[in-house]
Every structure is written in structure tokens, then in C-alpha cells.
């Protein structure tokens, strides 16, 4: 079993290209498309009045062309000619204004929708980033926990062994104490260092 190498966990060629291309695309978008998007929205608000004026201008020209191109005596003498002209021209003007305003509104809504879509993508990206960050945090915590578990496991093993060594030493002491009362040729002493310190006892070097 070999030690893990950081090179085994390095990004693959696909990961590298993916990140580099995505970054370059994003840069290109920011430098080229984002300004256009802003320009579109700015223009849609700035040109609202202009669009209405254009619609009104056309309506005016159409009305005058239709109603004033033949000013004969009958028209001059008619009681309602002036009022008719004013009424028709006003109605046409309204249509022109409405068309212009409708066009402007439509552009404004489209622009805001598109900007909002960008914001949605940002939010979706943030969600994804948050998921990635949580996964990363949890993975790091899990790795730390695994290390801690291993350390606690090792400490438990060492502690249990030290306990066993201590018990062995104590048992040897008791045995040797019992054997001490017997004649020297009958004694069956357990070989041990009777003056061993606690460290020697716990590490098992007090016996033998």
C-alpha cells in the first residue's frame, strides 16, 4: 500500500481545458456582449420619446397628405372641415404615439428580461458554488474525522496494551512475592526488573 501522491489527484487535461475555455468565454462575454446588452437597455429607455415622435411624425404626414392635398372651395366653405381635420389628425397622432411607446416598452421589457436571465444564471451558479463549497467543507471535515478516529484507535490500542503490561507486571510481582517465602531451590520466579519505573512497566520492559 503506497502513500497517496498529490499528482494522482491533479486535474485531468479535460478539466484544464474546460476551465480555461469557460474562463476565456466568460471574459469574451464580459468584454463584448455585456456592453451590448447594457447599450440595448440604455437605448430602449433613452429613445422612448424619439420613437413616439417618429410615430407621430409619420401619422401627421399621412393625415395631412390624405386630408389637405385638395383644398377646394367646397372644403373651404364646409362647416365641419376644420374640426374633421383636427379630429382625424388627433386620432392618427394617438396611434403614432401608441405605436412608438409600444415599441419602446417592448424593447425595455426584452432588455430587462434578458438582464434578469443573466441574473438567474448567476443565482443558479451561486447555488452550484454553494453546493460545491458545502461538499468541500464536509469532505474536509470527514477527512479530519477519519484522522481523529485513527488517532483515537491507535491511542486505545496503546492504552489497552499499557494496561495489559501493567497487569502482567503486577501479576509477576505478586507471584515473585509468593515465591520469595519458598526455599531458594524451589522458587519459580518470574524474571522482572523489580525497580522498574512506570514508563518501563507500561511499555512492557519491566518484565523478562
Amino acid at each position, binding site marked *: 500500500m503506497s502513500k497517496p501522491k498529490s499528482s494522482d489527484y491533479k486535474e485531468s487535461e479535460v478539466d484544464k481545458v474546460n476551465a480555461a475555455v469557460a474562463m476565456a468565454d466568460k471574459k469574451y462575454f464580459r468584454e463584448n456582449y455585456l456592453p451590448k446588452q447594457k447599450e440595448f437597455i440604455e437605448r430602449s429607455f433613452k429613445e422612448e420619446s424619439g420613437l413616439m415622435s417618429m410615430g407621430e411624425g409619420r401619422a401627421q404626414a399621412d393625415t395631412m397628405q390624405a386630408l389637405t392635398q385638395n383644398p377646394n372651395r367646397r372644403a373651404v366653405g364646409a362647416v365641419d372641415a376644420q374640426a374633421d381635420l383636427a*379630429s382625424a389628425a388627433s386620432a392618427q397622432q394617438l396611434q403614432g404615439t401608441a405605436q412608438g411607446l409600444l415599441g419602446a416598452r417592448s424593447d425595455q421589457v426584452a432588455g430587462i428580461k434578458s438582464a434578469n436571465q443573466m441574473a438567474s444564471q448567476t443565482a443558479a451558479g451561486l447555488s452550484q458554488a454553494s453546493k460545491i*463549497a458545502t461538499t468541500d467543507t464536509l469532505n474536509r471535515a470527514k477527512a479530519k474525522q477519519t484522522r481523529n478516529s485513527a488517532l483515537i484507535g491507535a491511542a486505545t490500542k496503546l492504552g489497552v496494551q499499557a494496561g495489559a503490561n501493567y497487569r502482567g507486571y503486577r501479576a509477576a510481582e505478586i507471584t515473585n512475592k509468593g515465591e520469595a517465602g519458598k526455599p531458594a531451590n524451589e522458587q519459580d520466579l518470574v524474571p522482572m526488573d523489580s525497580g522498574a519505573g512506570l514508563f518501563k512497566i507500561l511499555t512492557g520492559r519491566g518484565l523478562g
Partner: protein
Amino acid sequence: MSLYDNMRSRQDYAGQLQGVQNPDNAFAGMLRQDYNDYIANFRQYEDKLLGMTDDTTLIDRSRENAEKQAEIAAGVQSRNLERYGGGGLSGAQLQEQQKSAQRGNQLSLAGTVNNARVQQREMNQSLLQELIGIGQGVNARSLEGLGTAAQGAVARRGAYKQAKANYSSQMTNMGASILAAFLI
């Protein structure tokens, strides 16, 4: 030779791109900048559009236009009368013509403004509908974002509690095992 052979680039553009050292940091930075860009460049227009649901541009402008058209029509009529030497109309007839024009202008003004009100309402309603659609999107994405954040927070909290419980249990086991080894 296939068609693609003519189109195939001999240049390795992808190979010349700058590498991304830390993609998750770059991603986070990019998203932060995107949000800042959105607020700095588009929020003011979004607010402007939101404030246009009670717009009266069409009504205001049509009122001005109706008055202007009455003046223009009066000018046309007066020039025509001059061209035709009064058109053979008597003083009384001219007076009657003026009265009729005034009545007509008033009616025209009222009619135009009323029509403008109807059209303005339609336009404002339509804008409102579009804004509601946009708002639904904003609402959905904010809920989604918060949902993910909440999910992450719960997962982290759960993992922390679990880790604490594991640690405590392992420490207790260790203490008990060592103590047992000394005592038994």
C-alpha cells in the same frame, strides 16, 4: 477530402488559453462580479420599468397633440380661406364655422384622451403582466438559492453533530478500554 478538412483549424487556440489555477475560487469570484455588474448596470433600469406600471405618457402626450392638431387645423382652414378669398362665406357663416370648429375640437380632445386612456391602460396592464412574469423568475431563483443554502447549512450542522457524537463515543470507548485493561 472531406468538407471538414477545409474548415479544420491548424491553430491550437485552446492550447494558448491561460490556465485556471483554482477553478472553484475563480467561479466564486466570477459569480460575485456578475452580481455586482448586474446591480451596477441593470438594476436602475429594472427599477425604472417597475415604476412605469402607472405610466400616463400616452394620455399626456395625446392631450398635447389634440390641442396642437386643433391649432394646425385652424391654421390650415385660415390659409385656405385666404386662398379662396373667404370662400364666399358670409360673416354669420364664418362665425358658425368657427363655433363648429371649437365644438369639434373639444369633442376631438375628449375622444382622443379617452381613447388614449384605454390604450394606456392596456399597455400598463401588459407591462404589469410581463413584470409579474419576471418577478416569478426572481422569486423562484431566490427560493432555489435559499433552499440550497439551507440544505448546505443543515448538512454541515448534521455532519458537525455527527462528528461530535463520534468523537465523544470514541473517547468514551478509549477510556473504558484502557481502564478495563488496567483493572481486569
